[in-house]
């Protein structure tokens, strides 16, 4: 997710905070990491996850889109971001939008699998 050990240390910390129920603190740790690597799509994705868990659906969606904007050809990550967007849209009560997002997610997941062979698994670090 990053070659920078400082960023990895902050990601670890975010995970510990998150699993300990300290979501604000997890978000703060991710923001610290983003100050070091502001264009790292994984960090934006993780921050989107935190916001989703906090019920901040609009922010979660934007942050996932922002993650996508930095993701280049990382289709697996894009699939995870669309998954997250879908979940957020369900939270917003937008079922049609959610379905659309899930469809895009599975398309991208398939594309990623096709590229990497069947062995490919999700590389997104899930905070849960």
């Amino acid at each position, binding site marked *: 997710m990053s070659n*920078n050990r*400082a960023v990895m240390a902050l990601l670890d910390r975010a995970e510990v905070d998150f699993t300990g129920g300290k979501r*604000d603190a997890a978000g703060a740790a991710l923001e610290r990491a*983003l*100050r070091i690597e502001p264009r790292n799509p994984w960090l934006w994705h993780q921050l989107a996850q935190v916001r989703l868990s906090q019920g901040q659906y609009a922010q979660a969606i*934007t942050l996932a889109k922002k993650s996508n904007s*930095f993701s280049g050809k990382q289709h697996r990550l894009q699939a995870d971001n669309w998954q997250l967007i879908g979940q957020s849209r369900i939270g917003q009560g937008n079922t049609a939008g959610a379905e659309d997002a899930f469809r895009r997610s599975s398309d991208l997941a398939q594309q990623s699998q096709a590229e990497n062979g069947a062995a490919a698994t999700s590389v997104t670090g899930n905070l849960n």
Partner: protein
Amino acid sequence: MKLPSLQVPEFIRKIKFRMPGRTVRLIALLLLLALSGYTYYLDTTIREAFEGRKFALPARVFGRALELYPGLKLTRERFVDELKLLGYHEKPDPKEPATFTFTLSGVEFTTRQFKFGDGTTPSQHLHIEFEEGAVSLLQEHQASDVDVPLVRLEPPLIGGIYPGHNEDRDLVQLKDVPKQLIDALVAVEDRKFFTHWGIDPRGIARALFKTVTGQRIEGGSTLTQQLVKNFFLTSERTLTRKANEVLMSLLLELHYSKDEILETYLNEIFLGQDATRAIHGFGLASHYYFDKPLDRLDLQEIAMLVGMVKGPTVYDPRKKPDAARERRNVVLKEMVAQNVISQQQFVATRDKPLGVMARAPSGTSPYPAFMQYVHRQLQRDYRDEDLRSEGLRIFTTLDPFVQQQAEEAVQKRLAALEKARRLPADTLEGAVVVSSTQTGEIQAMVGGRQARYAGYNRAIDTQRPIGSLAKPIVYLTALEDPAHYTLITPLDDSKLVWKQRGAPDWKPQNYEKTFHDKVQLRVALAHSYNVATARLGIDLGVERILDKLPLYGIERKPPPFASSLLGAYGLAPVEVAQMFQTFADGGFRTPLRAIRAIVTADGTPLQRYPLNVEPVSAAGPVYLLTAALQGVIREGTAVAMKNWLPPEMNVAGKTGTTDDLRDSWFAGYTGDRVAVVWVGRDDNKPTGLTGASGAMTVWGEMMKAVQPEPLDPVMPDEVEMANIDPASGVRYDDGCAAGMQLPFIKGSAPAEMAACPVVSGGEGASVTDGSGKALQVQPDGKSVVKPAAASEGGPEANKKSWLQRLLN
């Protein structure tokens, strides 16, 4: 106080008369009662006064904490500057917190423990090394040295906020006061302070004797008495007053500890007068005279302040430096006599100059403009009572290094411009806002040339016409419609007369007063052609364009006239920064913020200001706009930027110049920072400067010093590159060596391919822009150089040469 006169009732008089023995006792009792009543009254008065002065601890405002990690771009010199800013001292064996020493190519140091909003960082004994302008090693000294991935230094304290009181106080806590200061104070003013009950009987006896024998009434005051006197500042010197003072001092000691009394004394004592502003307390005095916090004072500076207690006017170091110096040395001598300092220390300090700042800073923060902005954000988001909670800690985004570069660039460039253009000195003013591209955090704010002095904050309070800085919105609106507009769409730059209701006929002119017939869209923006832009904006719809401004954070509504397309409306630099931040961040708007978090004294987060992002424009058109804004620097109005930053930086930006050259603007972005500079005069008279000759030079100077990241936006999915002939706009095959790569929204590039022109000279030939360089237009900087033109091209090579340039 006036006690009510007692009406003695008839029956008491009778009792008195008849029973003399009892009468005496009764009178004694009544007297006692009256006395205890009076004592009670004094007690209440003094306690009220004391509690009132025991100020709520101020909210403390911190700048950003420097995060250290291997690979961080940082030099040793800059690192040591940061340590000094944090009040670290150089020491041979730096094991104590806040000490450091130089090693062969690095620094060994020990941090302080610090309570952040998200937990406490312990004190760490560390070793850092630098190589080629970056951190190469970071280790913690333990039994054996261990690599650490990340260290967060303490954040620098940048100011205090005193809700409900005069803002301009700098309250200190006893534990933060240098021991030498307390020692000196006790040695000189009240040697028995820690043992007496509030008064010094011998001193009182002496004072009484002198008074009774008709000599002048004088001191013998303990620190406690001085404090009491300070509460009820009157020049009246009577025996009654003295008696009250003695009684109140005794009472004060009865209720409060020595530490509490001493702390209040240190914050209350009068130490000078600045016009209408009284300088109370050592904390503020330290800033007022030496421009630094109390804990960074040297011995002779401490001695001078302690000496001033006796008479701030008599020993005013600015007006009576000789008297102040003499008094300072009396204090130093007394410290030797009391064994507080050694004879050696005395000899080493007695000849030192006073070291007082010639001009007093107007406040306690070195960053008044930024603090003002923080204050506004607090006022907007909080009720006053929320901020009254004691000892709040406010974590802000200010980066002292960036701030310093911004201040220096303004000072240096404005002075140079005045000199070069024979303008009267000190007539130009300037303002700067610098923010981080992806997080919207404000790293620096300069409100004027005298950045250290609070006053008119031009970064947030001046609204000046933005001129051509308004154009990107017009072009972005066009590029959002790829069916009709691309970067190479020809625009009409011929003479225009626009009639509109409610305004006189509008005949926009180009800066050079010439017209250009047909120009490509990207060229019209690069050269800032007014007429082509006006016609484009009118075609798109004036209202449609102006209605978009709120999306980019501009709340102010410009007049609904076509002239607004060319920026005939005023904005503050901070508003312009918000607009360009959105362009820089690929169409995501992140509200600019100065505060990260607010934490109560016990460490509970009161509020966080989390990153907040909103998509306001599609990524594709913004990518195209960025490419066009890069053209402004590469071949347009800001081509002189190359005097400051190398072309590999791929800076995107826009100049702005207003009528009669009154306002000079530059707004632009690199890979990591967005910055806006305004230069003009407070009286709004012409400066003779264009955006390029004025503000851009400040921008370049500043950015060169902060060493930005190259601009390298990610190409969105909906964008593709096409090989285009820059002059004719025809498309060549991608393999053709002529032409330049330009981004298009997919499907909007010319479909037809022209034949690749046969170029003589074979390998190495390509279309050039006249300077012999191959044209590079792609905003992502990748595969920028035509393969034939540069065999060793590519971003890595560019980065290296940039770094080499810096090192050379």
